[in-house]
C-alpha cells in the first residue's frame, strides 16, 4: 500500500495535478460547509482578490525558475500603484497611468537585475536592499499618505466587469497567456529555464547568462508594476503602504504550485493554482467565520505541508 501511494505520488503527471486537485477538493468541501460559498458573487469576489497575487506569482515564477529570488515586489506594487494614481490625478489618462506603472516596474526590475549581474550580489540580498530603498522612496515622496480623491475612471480596471467576467480576471488571463508564451515557447523563456537549472552548461552552450538573469528580473518587475496598478485601481487610490509582505505570499504560492526555489523547475499554471489554493483557503475560512488569526497559522502550516509532500514523498533520497 505504502509503495502504491509512493508510485502514485512519484508520477510526474499526477504531481502536477496535485495542487489543482487539492483546490477542487477544497472547493467541494467549502460548498458543503457554507451555504454562501458556491455562488457567482463569491467566486467573483475571490477572483478579484486573487488577481493581484496571481500576477505576482507569475512574475516570481520567472525569477525562481531562473534560480533567483525577488523580495522587492511588494514595495514595487506600492510604488507603481502610487505613481500610477499620481499620473492619473494629473492627466486623467488611463493609458499614461498604465505606462507609468509599467515604467516603475521595469525600472525597479532593471536595478535589481543590474545589481545582481554587475555587482555580483546574490539576488536574495540585492532585492532585500531594494525592498527598503523602494518602500522608503515611495513613503518619502508621498509623505506616507495615500493618493486619493482621483478623477472618475481610475477604478474601472480593478472593479469593472466585462459581461459577467470581472476585468481583473481578463487582465490576469491576458498576462498569463503572454507570460506562458514567453516562458514556454520563446527562446528567451527556454534560456531563462536553462540558466536556472545549470548556469555553467548554459554559458558553455553559448547563452548570455548575465543578460538572461537581468531579463528575468525586468520581466518580474513589469508584472509587479501591473499588479500594483490593478491593486491601486481596485481600492481607487495609491497606497504607499500597500502590499506589505506580499512577496512572501507570492513565493509561497509559487512553491505550493510546484516551482522549485533551486531554479529550473516549475510551471506558470502551477503558480496560479498555488494562488487559487491560498485564496480559496482564506475565503472558505472567512465564510466559516474562522478568525484571520487562525487563518495565518493555517496558511503557514499548509506551506510546510505542501513542500514536505514534495520533498519527502516525491524526491526521496
Amino acid at each position, binding site marked *: 500500500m505504502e509503495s502504491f501511494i509512493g508510485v502514485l505520488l512519484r508520477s510526474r503527471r499526477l504531481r502536477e495535478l496535485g495542487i489543482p486537485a487539492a483546490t477542487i477538493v477544497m472547493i467541494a468541501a467549502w460548498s458543503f460547509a457554507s451555504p454562501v460559498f458556491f455562488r457567482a458573487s463569491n467566486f467573483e469576489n475571490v477572483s478579484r482578490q486573487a488577481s493581484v497575487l496571481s500576477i505576482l506569482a507569475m512574475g516570481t515564477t520567472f525569477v525562481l525558475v531562473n534560480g533567483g529570488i525577488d523580495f522587492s515586489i511588494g514595495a514595487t506594487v506600492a510604488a507603481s500603484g502610487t505613481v500610477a494614481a499620481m499620473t492619473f490625478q494629473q492627466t486623467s489618462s488611463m493609458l499614461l497611468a498604465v505606462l507609468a506603472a509599467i515604467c516603475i516596474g521595469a525600472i525597479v526590475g532593471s536595478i535589481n537585475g543590474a545589481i545582481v549581474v554587475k555587482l555580483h550580489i546574490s539576488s536574495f540580498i540585492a532585492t532585500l536592499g531594494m525592498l*527598503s*530603498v523602494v518602500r522608503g522612496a515611495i513613503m*518619502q515622496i508621498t509623505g506616507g499618505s495615500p493618493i486619493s480623491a482621483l478623477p472618475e475612471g481610475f477604478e474601472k480596471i480593478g472593479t469593472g466587469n466585462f459581461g459577467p467576467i470581472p476585468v481583473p480576471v481578463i487582465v490576469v488571463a491576458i498576462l498569463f497567456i503572454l507570460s506562458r508564451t514567453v516562458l514556454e515557447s520563446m527562446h528567451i523563456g527556454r534560456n531563462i529555464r536553462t540558466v536556472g537549472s545549470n548556469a555553467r552548461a548554459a554559458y558553455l552552450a553559448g547563452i548570455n547568462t548575465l543578460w538572461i538573469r537581468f531579463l528575468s528580473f525586468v520581466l518580474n518587475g513589469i508584472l509587479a508594476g501591473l499588479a500594483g496598478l490593478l491593486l491601486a485601481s481596485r481600492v481607487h487610490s495609491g497606497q504607499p503602504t500597500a502590499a506589505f509582505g506580499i512577496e512572501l505570499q507570492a513565493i*509561497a504560492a509559487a512553491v505550493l504550485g510546484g516551482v522549485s526555489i533551486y531554479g529550473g523547475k516549475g510551471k506558470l499554471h502551477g503558480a496560479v493554482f498555488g494562488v487559487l489554493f491560498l485564496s480559496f483557503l482564506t475565503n472558505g475560512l472567512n465564510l466559516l467565520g474562522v478568525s484571520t*488569526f*487562525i*487563518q495565518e497559522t493555517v496558511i503557514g502550516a499548509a506551506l510546510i505541508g505542501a513542500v*514536505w509532500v514534495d520533498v519527502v514523498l516525491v524526491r526521496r533520497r
Partner: protein
Amino acid sequence: MCVVFASFQPIFLTVSNFQNVTRQISVLIILALGETIVLIAGGLDLSIGSIVGLSGITAALFSGKLGIVPGISIGVIIGATAGATNGILISRFRIPSIITTLGMLSVARGITYIISDGRSITDVPRSYRYLAEAYLGPIPMPVLIAAVLFLIVQVLLAQTSFGRRVYAMGVNRTAAWLSGTPVARIELIVFTISGLLAGIGGVLLSSRTVSGQPTAGSGFELQVITAVVLGGVSLFGGRGKLWRAMIGVLFIGLLGNGLNLLDVSPYTQTMVTGIALIIALASDQSLIGAKRDPWE
C-alpha cells in the same frame, strides 16, 4: 560613521545616548547571535521576528497570572520550542529551511494573535520592566545579558567541537556527513538555539514596553539578516565571524540612531539602510577580489 555623527550632533556622544542606543540594539544583538549560527551552518531563519512576538506575549501573559519568574521562563521556553520545531522539520523531514521558517513566520504570528486576540497585554506586574530598565553600575541590564550571551555563543562557535562542526557543515554538508558529523542533530541544535535566543530577545522587548504586543518583532528577521550579512557572514554557509556580525548590528543600530538625532525622516532611513546593505556587499566583494565564474 560615529565621528561624522558626533561632529554634526553633539548629543550623539553623550552617555545617555549610548545607554539608550545599546539598550535598543541589545535585542537585535541577541537575535543576530542566533541568526549567525544558523547562517554559518548553511541555513536561514526567517521566523525569529514572529518568535519574538510569540515569546513576548506568552511571557507577559503568564507574568500577569503566575508571577514574573515563571512567566519569563515560559516565554523563553516557548521560543526554544518554536526553534526546535523548525529544527525537527528541517533535519528530520528535510524541508528547506527557507520554507520551514517562512511557514513558521506565519504560524507563530498567527498563534500570537490567537493568544492575545489581536490586543496588547498590559496586565503585567510593574516589576516586569526591571529586566529591561535595571542597571548594573552604568551598564543597562539588556546590554549585560546580550554581552553574556555573546560570550557564550562566541566560545561555543570558536572553542568547541560543536562550533567546528557547524562551520564544516556550512562549507560542505555532504563532506561533513561523510566524515562523521551528525548533521541532523547539529541542525536541530542550531535552530533550537536560534529560537531560544529569539525567545530571550522577545521577553526583553516586551519587558521594555512593559506589555505584550502581538505585532512585536515583525520584520526583525530581515533587519537582522541585513545586519549580519553586512558583518561579513555568508548567506551560503561556512563563512563568517561572530564579532564581525555584531559590528554589522552596531553599524545598523548606530546608523538609525544617528539619522534620528539628525532629524532625518524614517522613510529616508529605510532607503539609506537598503543602499548601505548593497554598497557594503559590493565593496566587500571587490575588496576580496574573488575569482568569479563568467556565468555568474
